[in-house]
């Protein structure tokens, strides 16, 4: 799988997502990272909501994931990576389209997450895994 470039900034927290409670823990960590940069409620809510969507995808479709949260204090950005070694996404354009779902969601997960954040990147390879990266400005 093509890898997304290494992030600058400080690693804030790393979370393994293997059960549903881990989604809650990891998204709360994203919230603390935004609080640490003094984010306004709306900016924090957008990023935490988007992170919740991709963490759930990592668990439900990827079979589990690792969440990495980085703080870039200089640029007042929080970066969220969600990496899984699941089946990958066959048709990326379709998966990113609003309204599409291959599972049990409303189909606004990935496309919706993309709309809520300031930076969005995704690489995926069938049979290898998926790496989603989000960032929000505080």
């Amino acid at each position: 799988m093509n890898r997304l470039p290494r992030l600058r900034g400080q690693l804030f927290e790393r979370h393994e997502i293997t059960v549903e409670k881990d989604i809650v823990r990891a998204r709360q960590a994203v919230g603390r990272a935004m609080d640490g940069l003094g984010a306004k409620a709306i900016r924090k809510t957008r990023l935490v909501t988007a992170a919740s969507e991709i963490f759930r995808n990592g668990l439900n479709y990827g079979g589990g994931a690792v969440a990495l949260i980085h703080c870039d204090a200089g640029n007042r950005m929080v970066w969220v990576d969600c990496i899984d070694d699941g089946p990958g996404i066959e048709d990326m354009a379709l998966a990113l389209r609003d309204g599409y779902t291959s599972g049990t969601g409303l189909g606004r997960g990935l496309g919706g997450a993309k709309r809520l954040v300031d930076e969005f990147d995704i690489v995926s390879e069938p049979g290898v895994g998926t790496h989603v990266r989000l960032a929000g400005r505080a």
Partner: protein
Amino acid sequence: MSQAAGLFLVDEIMLVAIDENIDDGDIVALQDRLAEEVHANDAQGIVIDISALEIVDTFVGRIIAQLAGIGVLLDAPTYLVGMRPAVAMTLVELGMTLPSVRTARNLQHAVSRLRSGR
């Protein structure tokens, strides 16, 4: 289910308080429990308080819509109260406007609307 949601019957109205730490499994379990409790207690209405929730994502949004749908089918009109402004803005940005869910500004408003049959 853990303490992720509390159900309280007050004057024939079922109050549902959802905890910030609720996870996907808990909220699915809440659907079953709420339907049972509303039926068993002959509740005349349901008020779901989400003021503790820092976010509502598409999964939780979908379940909230289903909770309201269950309430309607059980003849227990359902109100959602306590949504934080940032949560409302984010839901609209996600395209989830929850058209089938009735909202009220707070618990008191919801209860008085239920009492007046609106």
